[in-house]
């Protein structure tokens, strides 16, 4: 026993991905920037202050034949209620589900059609808004309004054609603020923001290529200039499967560099679960024989010194144990970091609001002694090869107990379809069962939308050129080098860059550097740069353009603005950077020349270097260095000429 399965996956190679028959489907959700929300006239802005709170409960509606969606049932059984934070600036009665939706935002429809045309997808000629049942509370209605815009098409990446399945337009969900045992708190500001969802067909490419595909798709979206930019405006979902099992969906991967890590972890985890199921079957075990039923062992542990047990007993919890025939060594075995059966059980327990599970491979431990473990084993009739796990649960946790047991039973099935969430390091965590077939029905409050040829033609004019052409355009038009052009195209500030180029006389290179490298360096310092929006930055550039701020001090001003949440004018005032006019500069230079007249007379033009240092000491950050050097040279020349 304790045979470690094939661990050649430790460093996954192309070959090993083929061996596990890895398939990844990428879904991108991108917020659109079209002024207002999808079904009301609220602006798409984030707000922090809550003017009022609304408390709601959602109830699963039943379909015919009493079919109940596993995800819906799960949510309802958790008996959670939802609290919605409402701000008058960012939400109206529509978000509160207190007023029927307004007609669909046609600018959002046009944006989605433009994206579809860019991906060569077939646009549906009559759009039907649907209600997709979602009862995790993230929609006040209990459903998400969504409309299929187009089918098929493909994305070209490095010579590959990655097929597109569907493109839809949907309302974003409310922003989760807090999750407690029996309620969740959401902010309504994000609810209803238009999102375009692009679902790519599952592919067998390696995880790094998936990141590459996501990058290219993100670029294409940004080139339309119709999408929102910044953190949280684009989210990736990954459907990962191995050996043709049903995929698990990892929802809400926000950073691209996390994509390969998430896929790799899922590949290892799912492949391990696949191997475990084979191993169990090879032992001649079946789920019916192996997974026991819950036994109340509270009495056996009443006088232990374990802090965990004491705490549970104090909270009036019952301690349940369940025998797992043939599982000794299997629960704690960890072929890769955080891939183990014990964790699979504990995750399900935690998702149901329990603290976790304790299993036989980690006991004795947690203050439970060898003697106490023996007692439990005796009651459960656990033999040498068998394992068990313990759960601390209250009387109303029946559903949680059943869910953990069902998870144990499913060890015999291999990887099972789940909805999971990504962790910061690329691992994933169980969040809920995968929903059954989409539960959709028509949104009868919104009339059907006919997509005319005129509408298609209008959108066609907005389809962006291919990336490489756009890149070349920026390189030649703005005389940027390719790296800088790529950076500005990938940044959140492309529109601002173009605007600043046309509204100021500043060099495109300076603007591109400021908007990419400077802001990135601030982020690396740990400064939150979200305060630097387009309006504030353009204001700053205009001050630079009019000579009121020197180029050298732009970084410092930006930092000050972010840290103190003030605009550029206020930052200048507070920092004591008062720009110096040419007149004042000239008078300073004359003064410096006067007091160093001997040096000037002795070294003639060569005195420039020394004098420049002296002048800059006085005017640094208040006037552009180039300007200083020009005026200084002029004045040295004047002085020398007048002497002659």
């Amino acid at each position, binding site marked *: 026993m304790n045979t470690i399965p094939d661990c050649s996956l430790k460093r996954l190679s192309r070959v090993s991905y083929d061996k596990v028959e890895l398939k990844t489907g990428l879904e991108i959700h991108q917020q659109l920037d079209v002024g207002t929300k999808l079904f009301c006239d609220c602006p798409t802005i984030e707000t922090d202050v809550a003017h009022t709170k609304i408390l709601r409960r959602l109830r699963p509606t*039943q379909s015919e034949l009493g079919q109940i969606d596993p995800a819906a049932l799960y949510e309802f059984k958790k008996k959670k209620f939802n609290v919605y934070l409402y701000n008058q600036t960012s939400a109206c009665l529509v978000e509160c589900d207190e007023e029927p939706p307004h007609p669909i935002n046609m600018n959002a429809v046009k944006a989605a059609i433009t994206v579809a045309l860019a991906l060569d997808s077939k646009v549906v000629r009559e759009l039907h808004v649907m209600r*997709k049942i979602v009862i995790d509370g993230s929609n006040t209605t209990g459903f998400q309004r969504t409309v299929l815009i187009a089918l098929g098409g493909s994305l070209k990446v490095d010579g590959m054609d990655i097929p597109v399945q569907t493109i839809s337009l949907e309302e974003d969900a409310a922003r989760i603020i807090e999750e407690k045992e029996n309620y969740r708190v959401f902010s309504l500001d994000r609810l209803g923001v238009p999102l375009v969802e692009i679902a790519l067909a599952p592919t067998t490419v390696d995880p790094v290529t998936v990141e590459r595909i996501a990058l290219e798709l993100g670029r294409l979206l940004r080139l339309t200039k119709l999408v929102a930019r910044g953190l949280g405006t684009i989210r990736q979902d990954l459907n990962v499967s191995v050996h043709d099992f049903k995929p698990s969906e990892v929802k809400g991967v926000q950073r691209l560099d996390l994509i390969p890590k998430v896929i790799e972890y899922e590949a290892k985890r799912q492949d391990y679960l696949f191997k475990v199921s084979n191993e169990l079957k090879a032992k001649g075990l079946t789920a019916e024989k192996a997974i026991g039923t819950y036994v109340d062992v509270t009495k056996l542990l009443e006088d232990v010194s374990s802090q965990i047990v004491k705490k549970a007993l104090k909270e009036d919890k019952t301690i349940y144990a369940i025998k797992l025939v043939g599982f000794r060594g299997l629960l704690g075995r960890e072929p890769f970091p955080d891939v183990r059966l014990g964790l699979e059980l504990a995750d399900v327990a935690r998702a149901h609001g329990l603290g976790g599970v304790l299993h036989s491979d980690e006991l004795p431990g947690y203050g439970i002694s060898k003697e106490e473990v023996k007692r439990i084993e005796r009651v459960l009739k656990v033999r040498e090869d068998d394992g068990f796990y313990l759960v601390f649960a209250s009387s109303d946790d029946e559903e949680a107990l059943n869910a953990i047991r069902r998870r144990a039973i499913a060890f015999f099935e291999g990887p099972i379809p789940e909805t999971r969430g990504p962790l910061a390091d690329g691992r994933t965590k169980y969040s809920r069962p995968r929903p059954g077939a989409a539960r959709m029905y028509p949104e009868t409050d919104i009339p059907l939308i006919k997509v005319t040829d005129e509408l298609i033609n209008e959108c066609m004019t907005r389809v962006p050129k291919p990336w490489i052409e756009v890149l070349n355009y920026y390189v030649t038009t703005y005389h940027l080098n390719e790296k800088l052009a790529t950076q500005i195209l990938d940044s959140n500030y492309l529109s601002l860059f173009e605007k600043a180029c046309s509204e100021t006389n500043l060099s495109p290179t300076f603007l591109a550097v400021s908007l990419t490298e400077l802001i990135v360096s601030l982020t690396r310092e740990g400064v939150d740069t979200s305060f630097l929006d387009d309006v504030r930055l353009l204001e700053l550039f205009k001050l630079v353009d009019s000579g009121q701020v020197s180029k050298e001090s732009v970084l410092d001003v930006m930092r000050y603005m972010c840290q103190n949440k003030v605009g550029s004018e206020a930052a200048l005032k507070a920092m004591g950077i008062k720009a110096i006019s040419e007149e004042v500069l000239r008078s300073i230079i004359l003064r410096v020349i006067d007091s160093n007249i001997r040096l000037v007379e002795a070294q003639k033009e060569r005195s420039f270097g020394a004098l420049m240092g002296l002048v800059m000491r006085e005017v640094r950050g208040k006037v552009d260095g180039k300007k200083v050097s020009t005026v200084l040279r002029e004045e040295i020349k004047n002085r020398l000429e007048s002497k002659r």
Partner: protein
Amino acid sequence: MFTKRLNQLLLYATRRILKDTSGYKGALKAFLEAHNIGAGDIVVVKTDKDEYKGTVIPRYEYASQDFLTLKLPNGYNIGVEFNKIRSIKLVEEHAPPAFAPQHLTAPKKGLPKAVIISTGGTIASRVDYRTGGVRPALSASDLLSVVPELGDIAQVDADLLFSIYSENMTFSHWSKLSERIYNYIKEGYNGVVVTHGTDTMGYAAAALSFALHKTPIPILLVGSQRSSDRPSSDAASNLIAAMVTSLKAPFSGVYVSMHEWVSDERISIHVGTKVRKLHTSRRDAFKSINTSPVAVYKDGELNVLRNDLPKRGVSDDFRIFPKFEEKVSLIKFYPGFDPSIIESLYQKGYKGLVLEGTGLGHVNKLTADSLKKLIRDGFIVCMTSQCIYGRVRLTVYDTGRDLLDAGVLPLEDMLPETAFVKLSWCLGNFEREEVSKMMRSNIANEYNSRLLLEEVE
């Protein structure tokens, strides 16, 4: 053997006939019929360039007839342009959804008997996600499957009385409804809940308040502002509060059970004659006017706020007066009002009128003069205020005193809608001579002599 085959053939024949092409008209309908295709069937449609596989979905009645609605396997509906369709092929035949009844657990013994009478507001619905159809849950078992909590409160029967939108309610519907309720209570039901569309629920509540005299139990009207096919519907919580109130409240009479505010926390119980819909869409649209709610339901508990209501219990004088006179009207006065409108009502045989006057209960001079003549001829004119809140008082200004002189009946703080229903009811059940007096006396808490300031938190 033979009969089995015959049955099969019959079934096939009926299905052929019953192919549902609802919503489709003209050429598209003919096209579907020609291919023997109806709603629910899975088809493959080929256009010039594309091919779609999906389920045929009924078309909305008012939608354009240029598109065929298909539900794709991913659940989305799309419209496929009819004039681009080159071929359609039936892949799988499907009967329309049957909405088979739920498996019902036996009613719990020892629980009181209650009935939910449905008038058309769909308090509970089920959705067929295959075709997207929404059907009201009609039977008791349907209802229990959607709102299972009811099964813990009572042995619930369901009665589908009408199936109409509430704006189509008429005087005769109120008569039938009150008779039905009377019979249930006489049969010994301990709880009666009426589900009603919210648009005219205030009128119906007033009508039942007058028609049902000295009821032994409270009768609750309940509606929902979010339809019950939505997970966020307010229907279930309003319904549970109504059922608990009808079964357990210490008072009797007719009441309305709806959300107190937009949160799903507290349900207000309003007096049937003093409640009005004040918002087109919010959950808390119903408010008590010129009084406060009589009770609040929260977390399974009913908190009674008033003790001056008629007591629950055996009534020795439980009767119904179910008739309503149709020739009455409710008119809102406005600047420049032309009194010939009222005169023509009289000429058409109308017997009386409730006016919504301005402010304290005023109309212009021209109208006042005209009313004087009509009242002399036996026409009944009652005065309420379009302010909604507050009491009419005709003694403050000359205009008011003229109206009083003319014989206009000032109805104090009564709601215009309640006054209208009451006038219809008085004329329907009693002699003409008694009507003026009855209109001015408090029969079902429609008057409140003490208007108070609200509490400020």
